[in-house]
């Protein structure tokens, strides 16, 4: 622990090591029998473990709900030859990295502004956070109306200043990025909140020392705020990346993966298989999604944790 923690610890008397194991493991066993685990354990077993294990089985079957035939790896072969699946994998990655990256940069920028002593700070902080509170479905449907290329408010406003607005959600080239932008608008408040918490946690002493040394505002940002808010950065990256990789609700309510397959992500492809009644296939898709998310998030989170500096 660093100097800042050391300054608080003397208040509490250091506990002698001998006094620590007052409660022996045996005592815990006697007071809290294993039976205490049963209610929670049962719920977890029935609602989580059993379906998860079953889903790994059903992923290898052709399942109509009425009966299931074992087909080996057929579902995975079909899933990977699904029209636009490769496209949807690429789309998923683009979507996740674009939204995650924008949230880090914009969230940081907003947070830096919102921790300063500025006018109406509390109001502005709430304003930034409000979109997080709105349901994704509501946001999606609202933006669908706002971004309508012929009579939506956004293009009408652009038209008023002489700009011919793009076709947003129905242009196959930019549909995905449009949805990503909506996602950033909706999720930025959470990233900002985490950053504000991270920035506020940096002790004032560092700033004071830097100012005494004659550091500029940019130096302070680069050498103090940026490295010391790294725990917040890694939290934002992990949360928004997971959110982006399995994003579904916003994409489904704005474009349904369209036009055609232009903004399909893995989750929307899986949902379409389920809609079509290919239950085995969509289960296989979920297993694939699980593996993709784990393969990206696990090493990333290990790496980010290893980079974290202690305050």
């Amino acid at each position, binding site marked *: 622990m660093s100097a*800042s*923690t050391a*300054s*608080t610890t003397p208040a509490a008397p250091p506990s002698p090591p001998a006094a620590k194991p007052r409660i022996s493991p045996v005592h815990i066993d006697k007071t809290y029998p294993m039976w205490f685990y049963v209610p929670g354990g049962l719920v977890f077993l029935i609602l989580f473990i059993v379906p998860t294990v079953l889903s790994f089985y059903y992923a290898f079957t*052709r399942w*109509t*709900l*009425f*009966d299931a*035939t074992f087909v080996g790896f*057929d579902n995975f072969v*079909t899933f990977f*030859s699904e*029209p636009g699946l490769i496209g949807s994998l690429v789309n998923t990655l683009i979507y996740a990295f674009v939204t995650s990256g924008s949230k880090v940069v914009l969230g940081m920028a907003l947070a830096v502004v919102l921790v300063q002593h500025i006018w109406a700070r509390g109001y502005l902080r709430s304003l930034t956070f409000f979109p*997080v509170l709105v349901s*994704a479905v509501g946001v999606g449907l609202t933006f669908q109306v706002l971004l*309508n*290329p*012929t*009579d939506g408010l956004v293009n009408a406003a652009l038209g008023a200043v002489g700009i011919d607005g793009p*076709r947003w*959600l*129905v242009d*196959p080239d930019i549909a995905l990025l449009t949805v990503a932008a909506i996602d950033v608008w909706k999720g930025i408040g*959470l990233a900002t*909140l*985490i950053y504000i*918490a*991270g920035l*506020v*946690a940096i*002790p004032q002493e560092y700033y004071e020392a830097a100012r005494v040394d004659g550091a500029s505002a940019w130096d302070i940002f680069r050498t103090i705020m940026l490295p010391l808010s790294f*725990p*917040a950065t890694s*939290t934002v990256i992990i*949360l928004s990346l*997971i*959110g982006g990789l*399995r994003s*579904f*609700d916003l994409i489904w309510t704005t474009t*349904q*993966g*369209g*036009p*055609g*397959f*232009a903004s399909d992500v893995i989750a929307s492809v899986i949902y*379409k*298989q*389920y*809609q*079509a*009644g*290919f239950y085995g*296939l969509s289960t296989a898709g979920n297993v694939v999604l699980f593996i993709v998310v784990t393969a990206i998030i696990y090493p990333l989170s290990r790496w980010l944790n290893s980079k974290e500096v202690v*305050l």
Partner: protein
Amino acid sequence: MNFKKHGIAAIAIAAAAALSACSAGSLGSSDDDTTSGGAAAEKIELSFLVDNTETSQMTAQAIADGFMAENDDVEITIESRPGGADGDNIVKTKLATGEMNDIFMYNSGSLLQALDPTNQLVDLSSEEFMSRVDEAFLPSVSSGDKVFGVPFGQAMAGGILYNRSVYDDLGLEVPTTWDEFMANNEKIKAAGIDPVIQSFGDTWTSQLFILADFHNVTQAQSDWAEKYTANQAKYVDEPAIKGFQRLEEVATAGYMNEDYATAKLDQALTKLVNGEGAHYPMLTFVVNTYVTLADDAAENIGFFAQPGDDAATNGLTAWTPAGIYLPATTEGEELEAAKRFLDYVATPEACDAQTEAVTPTGPYMVQGCTLPDDLPQAVLDLQSYFDEGKASPALEFVSPVKGPNLEKITVEVGSGIRSAADGAKLYDQDVEKQAQQLGLEGW
């Protein structure tokens, strides 16, 4: 400082909780059975599951009321479910878990086949009332030699709805070949009217040029559907690829309304009725919707079948009505009462009750049923094709093979994202899964 670090952790946890809360499934729309407990004693209570469109609800209520007027020992309550793919899932889940209502209404044709009717539904082939059901309806509700349903509502057609005053003003004739249709479109465009309305905001509406072309396919090759089911005929080849090409032709000629990519069904109908657009490829069940949009809409909107290459074989692609089915879980006195209900549905009185509640959009498929004289023009137009025998059932009633992605592919072809040939090829791949899922031979 410790406190502040905990603060971050707490916020991170709260944030994670907030994120994961977003994903909680909201599937169950709580459509619980509404079996009223202490109602009048001894009445047999039946619940009847119907999709939630206004037309279906009113039709169902009309036949239920008609039946209960004659059978006062039975009480039928209507329960609604969503349509489309969500509805399919609800019906499948209810059947698979044994929770299905006593009676339910569902599509006939390929969608019914996906319900595993042989094991899930009550076979009605030995019932006396089935002899009163039109022969043409039976194949779409049969599997092997078993028959499962009686018709709900009327047959309808897929083809092209057109604005008759636009045609009168420009001196146009109803086309009987595709070339005539395209020539009309050119004149309509020159007059500053959108020749063809499309509404990709409701993606399913984009499929009509392909689906309604099926009469032309069967005219060119009568056994195409059988070969298609057996994996021997494909959409990439003639004659079936024509539907994709026709959609592409209309799109590349710039005949579509400017907002085709976002317009929805209702907006498209409004354009048609107002004369902003001249043609709208559609199913005729929308007649009930557009007649309310303008006073003269009933007379002003006509219908013609999608034209093909040859005027001599011009005819329409017909959709048989949905069916009313009994799940295998309906037993005992409920089953007996439910069969009495189906018996009633297959009578001219039931047809008349439906006509009174909802304007018919096509002929009934029960023997002895007649249509009133004061029908909207489009229904009269399509009726004349039936009367002349120039009608073929749509592909979904003669083959169980239908891919889930057709509407996405037709949006792409209609928007110029993908060519007709590519679209047809992609759709051929798409149907493979459905065929394998059904366990068809040759796939």
